[in-house]
């Protein structure tokens, strides 16, 4: 299964926008693929949002999931 990931802040800058990954079924496998394909991410803290909700723990991902990588916030 292929998923598309939207990115923000320094992660968006690093990858020039969207990332596409194969063989992703949950957030654990997502993180595994990211480490393999985007080693630069190792040095960046980020949170994962699925369907506009921040996730903690492992969460299932479907083809229609909206997935986002969020580097540390700096609003205000």
């Amino acid at each position: 299964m292929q998923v598309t990931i939207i990115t923000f802040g320094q992660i968006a800058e690093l990858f020039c926008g969207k990332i596409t990954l194969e063989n992703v079924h949950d957030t654990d496998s997502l993180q595994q693929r990211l480490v393999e394909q985007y080693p630069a991410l190792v040095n960046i803290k980020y949170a994962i949002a699925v369907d506009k909700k921040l996730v903690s723990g492992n969460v299932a991902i479907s083809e229609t999931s909206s997935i986002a990588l969020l580097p540390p916030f700096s609003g205000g």
Partner: protein
Amino acid sequence: MTDKKHKNIFVQGAVSSAFIADSIQKHSTKTTIGAHSIFLGQVRSDIINNRKVVAIDYTTYEELALEKMHEIREGIFAKYPLTCMHIYHSLGIVVAGEMCLFVFTSAVHRKEAIDACEEVVELIKKELPIWGKEIFEDDTHQWKENKL
């Protein structure tokens, strides 16, 4: 989840003092209010590794931010007896010396207005997906990270 339309908090560019004055003025008809507490975030021209910040460029994940802000708002109104609360955050370029955040709480008595305002500021900094890119005078930049 985003069926319900959430109040927008984002404004393009800086929050002006005229805008703030207008917001304050609008409350003169609400004569049960006894206290207003306002927090303003202003962009600093910090010197970082000998480079001077001239502006911050703000971006957000708007759908998530407005959903989160909605939750924060509900939580604050459940906790404090506020008459009203207004929140504005900049997107795009805000130059040093300009305002990027305006939090405005009003209540019958001062304690509620002051405590709610402070709590909202902390939650905005901690929980809203907003990113500030600090732009230096030599056109280089770095990504800001909030200390919590």
